[in-house]
């Protein structure tokens, strides 16, 4: 069983790395969707011998929301805003892949410093969670497009969710529901906002939104 959990977690880490290094927006969204599904599977695997019904429902919710609804919303936003398909990073893909890779040892080191909550779980859980958070941050910071920022928030939320499972177990459901709602609203609002910004400004590059700042440069 442990092997399966680890395999899933490693795939999760790989999706993080993939997100930092892929250049097609569509592929990025698909990978993020895959990550959502993996997240659900990890939850199942962690509780597998005796999984409660309401956990199962939650997992299903996660898979549907993160694996289907969010990608659909994002694809729709992409279509409506006629976003070009390249990601347009500030940092080149090679370098962001390098940074993403180096984030993993960092996460490993950080997790070794944190007081472990559930020693029974696989030791990879917390590092991968931290890695997702770091990768999400990297995506938010280093990408130009608003959509990739949404993706970044999504990845970060995935990390926080994993972290939640690792630290508080089943009670994390509450926390997660709250964040899930936040992100849902976020994606929704972003979808609408991007559409409107696009209509007004003809582009959705966030760096050009800096024209809206208070004082002229």
């Amino acid at each position: 069983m442990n092997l399966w959990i680890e395999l899933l977690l490693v795939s999760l880490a790989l999706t993080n790395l993939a997100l930092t290094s892929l250049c097609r927006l569509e592929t990025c969204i698909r990978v993020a969707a895959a990550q959502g599904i993996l997240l659900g599977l990890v939850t199942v695997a962690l509780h597998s011998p005796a999984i409660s019904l309401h956990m199962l429902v939650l997992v299903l919710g996660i898979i549907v929301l993160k694996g289907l609804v969010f990608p659909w919303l994002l694809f729709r936003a992409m279509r409506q805003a006629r976003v070009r398909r390249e990601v347009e990073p500030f940092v080149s893909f090679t370098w962001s892949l390098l940074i993403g890779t180096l984030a993993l040892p960092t996460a490993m080191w950080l997790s070794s410093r944190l007081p472990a909550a559930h020693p029974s779980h696989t030791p990879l859980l917390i590092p991968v969670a931290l890695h997702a958070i770091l990768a999400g941050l990297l995506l938010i910071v280093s990408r130009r497009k608003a959509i990739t920022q949404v993706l970044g928030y999504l990845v970060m939320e995935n990390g926080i969710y994993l972290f939640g499972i690792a630290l508080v177990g089943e009670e994390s459901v509450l926390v997660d529901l709250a964040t899930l709602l936040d992100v849902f609203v976020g994606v929704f609002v972003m979808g609408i906002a991007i559409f409107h910004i696009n209509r007004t400004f003809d582009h959705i590059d966030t760096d050009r939104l800096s024209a809206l700042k208070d004082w002229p440069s």
Partner: protein
Amino acid sequence: MIGLLLAIGLLIISGIGAMIASARPRIATMIGVGGTMLGGLLGIIPAIQVLSGHAIAPIRLPWSVPYGGFYVHLDGLSAFFLIPMLGVPALAALYGSRYLSVSDGRRRLGTHWFYFNLLTACMALVLIARNGVLFLMAWEVMSLASFFLVTFDDEKEHVRQAGWTYLVAMHLGTAFLFVLFILLGKQSNSLDFDHLGSAVGMIPANAGLLFVLAIVGFGTKAGFLPMHVWLPEAHPAAPSHVSAVMSGVMIKTGIYGLLRTLTLLGPPAAWWGWLLIGIGLCSGVLGVLFALAQHDLKRLLAYHSVENIGIIALGLGVGVLGMSLPSTPLMVLGFAGGLLHVVNHALFKSLLFLGAGSVMHATGTGEIDHLGGLMKRMPWTAVTFLIGAIAISGLPPFNGFVSEFLIYVGGFEGVSASHISPMIAGLIVLGGLALIGGLAAACFTKAFGIIFLGEPRSAHPAQAHESPWAMRLPMLALASGCVLISLFAPLVFTWMEPVLVITTGLRPDQLNETLVGKVELLNYVVILGVVFMAVALILLLLRHRLLSRRQVTHTVTWDCGYARPSPRMQYTASSFVQPLTDLFAALIRTRHSLDTPSGLFPRHASLTTNTPDIWREHFYQTAFKAIVWFLARFRWLQHGHVQLYVLYIAITLLVLLVFKVG
């Protein structure tokens, strides 16, 4: 010991003799060069004695300087460094005797040889000095002598600039060394090295501070990043045989100083090793990247010195980390690899600088993109340069591989350890060395391939000629040194035992166990290296046999159907490395200025790339500008009246007197 002092004396006297004979350049050269070669030979003998196990008694003479004392000693560590430090200048001097003859009569060669011999003498003195004052004095004279050697072509603006940079860098470095020695000597009230050692060992925080001071002070000489800025300026400016001595051996006095300080500071902390590994990685990778982007052959070689010093630092870092753990294999492999690389680099770097000198001597330019096709015109230089290029890229079967192999094995030992800290260090060393190795190979295929292969790219190399024998012989000697070390690597490794005893602080019997195992590895490496060459030879014969009965035709290079190929269509050095410099653009910031062609029949189009040192531009220049701004506030003190200056001095003296008395 007396022999060595005699050798140093001979060096200095012959230098003075050369200066006296300045009016007759030919005689001055003869005296100077003869002195260096004879003194070098004389001095190497005691070093070999020490390495083969004969201890030599130290000499201590009274000296009236406060805290000073003429206290010299030749132990294993000194002897190990002494051999290249005397050998390379001897060969470089022979080379220089012809290299400089073109400028006969124009400049005073006598003074040049005086400074050259003084430099050699002071390097030897630095290695054997066992008293802080004596050490610093020799160190300072060494820096000054080399400054005058760098500024040989002082009528050129850029040479003066380079000399200036060098002088400032050296003095900043030496300032740190002054602090280091003062702090070291404060407690023991003596600057003799034996006392220094006993005095510091107790407070770890102090030892750490002293270590950092040593890194900055000695690192400036050695060329650690970011104190390396003087290297790419000074080496291209100096005459080639001087660059060979400075880059090949003089910068190693920094490594020697660092190692000597380590023996004084007692058991090291783990972070010292990490610091060295970090510096090594940065110097290695950035050094080779900047080297890749250079267009000037000697500047390229200068950056490679930074790279190789980085490799040495990686080795020493592994060794120091091994001491802090403690782990004997890491210690032995790290220090042995680093130290062996010191000697190897001395050989192949001076060889490459001499080769560069020959190219410049024959063609009048060091601009890589203007050269080409020298293989047929300068076969000897080409072959020796090729050996140097393979060696410096760390490829088997030559000597560069042997030392890198030892450091690699150290890295792998770290990786296979169960402990996490040597494992991470091992990974950094492995990844770093592999990247450095790959980039160095790229850089030297560029340097050798563009300069010596293909067709001449301009008129400069087209009528090039092979160098005279006096220049060829030193290159051949250094190249055969590279081959010999790779053939006798196990033997060299066993000779390093007395050196390792000093650097690791282990007893010989503790050391031997590990040493024997590693010697066996080197046996394999050497045997396979020989097998490799033998197989290549057999295949060559096979090829010869196969072709002997067949038709062999000669024609033009396949021209893609284009009927008028010209040498100008060849790939240039800049285009060769462009993918790599683009990939690492974030680190090296190459500047492009592009004049794009336009219209149907474009007439003008040009692309210029330039890779200035970012540390110099962004760090030092900013800092120095700030200092200049600050000091400009005190301009009002300066009036140009001598009376006022005397008044300043008088007031200062008065204040000091009051301060002392009151």
